[in-house]
């Protein structure tokens, strides 16, 4: 009975889409609200004027004088202290206060003290690697920016996380904000932030914090909430005050997971600091972005490599510190004594190195006489040239097929049909898929998009997001099944997935650009590369968590591998699949904006343009807001649909 209904639903949808397509052909190019690249609407003009008024008021409006400017100056000062310490020469000194040798010594010492000696060696090697890539100063800037953002993020995130962990009301209050921060594509809030905190370190740091604070809050509150309740109850039953229970029971027990949260916060901050180069964050993001804009893939790759080195280093070092206390049982006395001795010696060495690096310029500025960056850069460039010149005829063919067979028809349906028709069709689809409430929400959000006047560009971006998500799901689910079923596949793919998640999207944008040219498909391909890791991980996890007994039962009943996958594992991990689709779509949307750099057009292009051309600033801000509306709409519909499934 139920199955029949489902089948009928399927037919209904086929018919629905056919009708949609037919209608879009009939009303092709009517009431599309297409807007020229350089054209404003009355609404974007209003926003532009408002933005202009805001930037004109920066020096005298009390909001700025007493609120935004002090925050900006505080954060700038904080960042500068750290940068002067390790990254930039200051006060006429030829090198930073602590030179390269000192930085390596101190970081190695901290790693040694909190983790194992192997980690310390890894830290030394990777830092030397960054130096040898000719990226020492940029690496230090990135580290300084990351450190500043992480310290500020934790100062906010951990107390808020504890609060949300203890109080249901606070959690309820935070959750929608945290959800929103997670959907928000990173590039969208750069421009509005810059409006208030201006272009520079402060905006970059705050933007990074918007990205990393929610993670810190989430994990800390989860750490408190997921504690075994029994010791907490025991503590209360013995008459402990809330403060005592928190400080003596909950925090010590949650410590390890909170440290793990620090690890996640660090990784998030690092990945964002690279993007924040768009609003003048110093560091490795600079060469990455300039490589993108003037097409020097090699230089971008070298910088990207340094980013990956820093990412691996920070990840391993912080997670090792968290893992070290897996059990609550500390080491024995003799172990402790040996460790203490090691740490003291290392501390003395680190101190000596730090002092030396301050006085001896050769130990202060990283030597540039051995250069591995140029050969790596040249090799990369020739590889990319090979791709571009000798492989691209294949890729261009593929691109054309997808563009003509998939992209254009969907674009015709969504963007080149009358806007009210598309809107109606979406609301009907949401009604069937997700129910009345979500349909109403869809109506409101889409109407808001229409009201901004950027309907056409929004539909262009949505089309690309949909196509990219479809392709991501096809590849991602296949890989996810493989990873979920085979340990070998998992360990084979995991390094690539991890690297894919830490590598800034800008780095692979250029080679992809070479393969597909400046087209919509390049943005789509970038979205696919960016979102596949998360989809593969979620699907793999879902497949793996299907109970062994179900598979045994199916095997005992004589199912073959294909049947086990299609009849047992996939249906049983339906929730994971839905989650993967949702996350995949959000991730795709996040980079489709970056795709504005390589010819995606649509909202991303407008956002980028708005940051350069004063007359289009309003349009850029509105485009960012429309991306947010799109993200919320996609997320809500996908979540409601997965709840129904």
């Amino acid at each position, binding site marked *: 009975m139920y199955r029949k209904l489902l089948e009928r639903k399927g037919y209904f949808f086929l018919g629905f889409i056919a009708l949609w397509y037919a209608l879009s052909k009939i009303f092709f190019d009517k009431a599309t609200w297409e807007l020229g690249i350089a054209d404003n609407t009355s609404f974007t003009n209003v926003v532009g004027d408002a933005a202009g008024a805001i930037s004109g008021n920066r020096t005298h409006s009390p909001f700025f004088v007493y609120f935004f400017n002090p925050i900006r100056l505080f954060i700038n000062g904080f960042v500068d202290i750290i940068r002067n310490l390790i990254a930039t020469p200051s006060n006429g000194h030829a090198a930073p206060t602590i030179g390269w040798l000192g930085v390596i010594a101190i970081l190695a010492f901290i790693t040694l003290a909190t983790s194992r000696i192997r980690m310390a060696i890894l830290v030394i090697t990777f830092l030397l690697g960054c130096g040898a890539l000719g990226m020492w100063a940029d690496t230090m800037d990135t580290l300084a920016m990351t450190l500043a953002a992480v310290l500020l993020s934790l100062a906010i995130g951990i107390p808020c996380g504890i609060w949300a962990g203890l109080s249901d009301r606070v959690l309820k209050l935070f959750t929608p904000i945290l959800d929103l921060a997670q959907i928000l594509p990173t590039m969208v809030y750069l421009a509005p932030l810059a409006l208030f905190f201006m272009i520079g370190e402060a905006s970059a740091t705050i933007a990074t914090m918007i990205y990393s604070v929610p993670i810190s809050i989430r994990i800390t509150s989860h750490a408190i909430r997921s504690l075994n309740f029994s010791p907490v109850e025991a503590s209360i039953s013995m008459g402990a005050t809330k403060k005592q229970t928190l400080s003596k029971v909950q925090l010590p027990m949650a410590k390890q997971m909170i440290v793990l949260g620090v690890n996640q916060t660090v990784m998030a901050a690092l990945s964002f600091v690279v993007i924040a180069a768009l609003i003048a964050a110093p560091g490795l993001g600079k060469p990455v972005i300039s490589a993108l804009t003037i097409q020097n893939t090699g230089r971008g790759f070298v910088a990207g490599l340094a980013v990956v080195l820093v990412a691996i280093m920070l990840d391993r070092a912080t997670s090792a510190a968290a893992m070290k206390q897996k059990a609550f049982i500390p080491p024995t006395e003799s172990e402790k004594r040996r460790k203490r001795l090691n740490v003291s010696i290392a501390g003395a060495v680190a101190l000596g190195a730090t002092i030396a690096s301050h006085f001896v310029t050769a130990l202060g500025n990283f030597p540039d006489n051995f250069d591995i960056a140029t050969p790596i850069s040249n090799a990369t460039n020739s590889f990319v040239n090979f791709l571009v010149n000798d492989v691209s005829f294949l890729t261009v063919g593929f*691109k054309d097929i997808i563009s003509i067979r998939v992209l*254009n028809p969907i674009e015709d349906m969504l963007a080149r049909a009358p806007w009210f028709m598309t809107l109606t069709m979406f609301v009907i689809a949401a009604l069937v898929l997700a129910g009345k409430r979500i349909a109403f929400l869809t109506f409101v959000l889409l109407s808001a998009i229409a009201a901004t006047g950027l309907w056409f560009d929004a539909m262009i971006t949505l089309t690309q997001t949909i196509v990219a998500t479809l392709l991501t799901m096809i590849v991602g689910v296949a890989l996810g099944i493989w990873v979920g079923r085979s340990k070998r596949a998992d360990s084979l793919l995991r390094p690539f997935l991890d690297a894919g998640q830490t590598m800034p999207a800008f780095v692979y944008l250029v080679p992809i650009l070479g393969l597909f040219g400046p087209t919509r498909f390049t943005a789509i391909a970038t979205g696919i590369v960016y979102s596949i890791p998360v989809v593969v991980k979620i699907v793999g996890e879902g497949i793996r968590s299907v109970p062994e007994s179900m598979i045994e039962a199916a095997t005992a009943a004589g199912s073959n591998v294909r049947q086990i996958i299609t009849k047992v594992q996939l249906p049983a991990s339906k929730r994971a699949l839905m989650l993967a689709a949702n996350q995949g779509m959000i991730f795709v949307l996040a980079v489709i904006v970056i795709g504005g750099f390589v010819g995606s057009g649509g909202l991303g292009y407008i956002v980028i343009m708005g940051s350069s051309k004063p007359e289009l600033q309003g349009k850029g801000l509105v485009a960012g807001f429309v991306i947010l509306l799109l993200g919320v709409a996609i997320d809500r519909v996908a979540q409601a649909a997965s709840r129904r499934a």
Partner: protein
Amino acid sequence: MKLTSRRKIALASSVMISAFAMTATFQSSSKAADCGTWGIAMHAWNGYTASAQVVTEVAKAQGCTINQSTLTEGGTTYDAMEAGTTDVIIEDWGGGRWQKWTDRGAVVLVGANGNVGKIGMFVAPWMVKKYPGITNSKNLNKYASLFKTADSGGKGAWFEGPPGYTTIGEKMIKANKLKFKAIATGSEAALISTITKAEKNKKPALIYWWEPSTLFVKVPGLDKARVNFPKNDWSDAAKASGLTDYPATPLEKLATKKLMDSGSVFAKIVKNFKWTNADQNAVAADIEGGMTPEKAAQKWIKAHPAQVKAWLA
């Protein structure tokens, strides 16, 4: 366990404290030079890098500390100057788009840098021979179908400049009644990749590009592949609003008022810096050839002592 972690912290903090102490003690010993610490904005294109790097190297030789910050051109950089994040734009194509900022006073127009920019539309050079008359805008429609792609919606693809660059493509298409569609390429890299690939594979392409640029060396014949549009008719107000071609633009220098009022030698350098398109192309070509910007700039400085000396006067 507690004891060790406390010791660890004590040790680590003693290292940190001594580091800070050293900063405090020895900062005063090294006297800051008169020039001071200033910022210069770095924009994406090679020519800009050449100019900015030469200015940076000249200033460094005078004892200045110069921080280069990579910034998107236009509004972003003006904002950054207003915020004090950076101080100098050495080459701006904007033709007055800085007005709002200069009106507010923190940013000042310093003057022309000697380079003259000329934006235009270029076909892949191989097409010039094969399709006679293609460089005349009147003939473009005849060849429009050649330029069709999967993305151009049945018209010819007209690859526009990066988002921040001055573009009037849509207006030109309209004014010249062309059967082309402006396609947002997004970055310089996208344009370079499009034209080099088209030239190599003998595929049609029509792109936005500009002088001065080293791309003319990299893609031989590109200088002959400029499409000639009718000049803008400024005499008639109605016609002037429909722009038919890009005008030649003297490129400008902008700087913060703070720098220009400081009396620093860097302000003098920025004010006096002036060179030709050929100068810029020479340095840019070296950078493109794999030299680091620093070395390329120093090479030019060494070869032109008189000119540099004039900037310092």
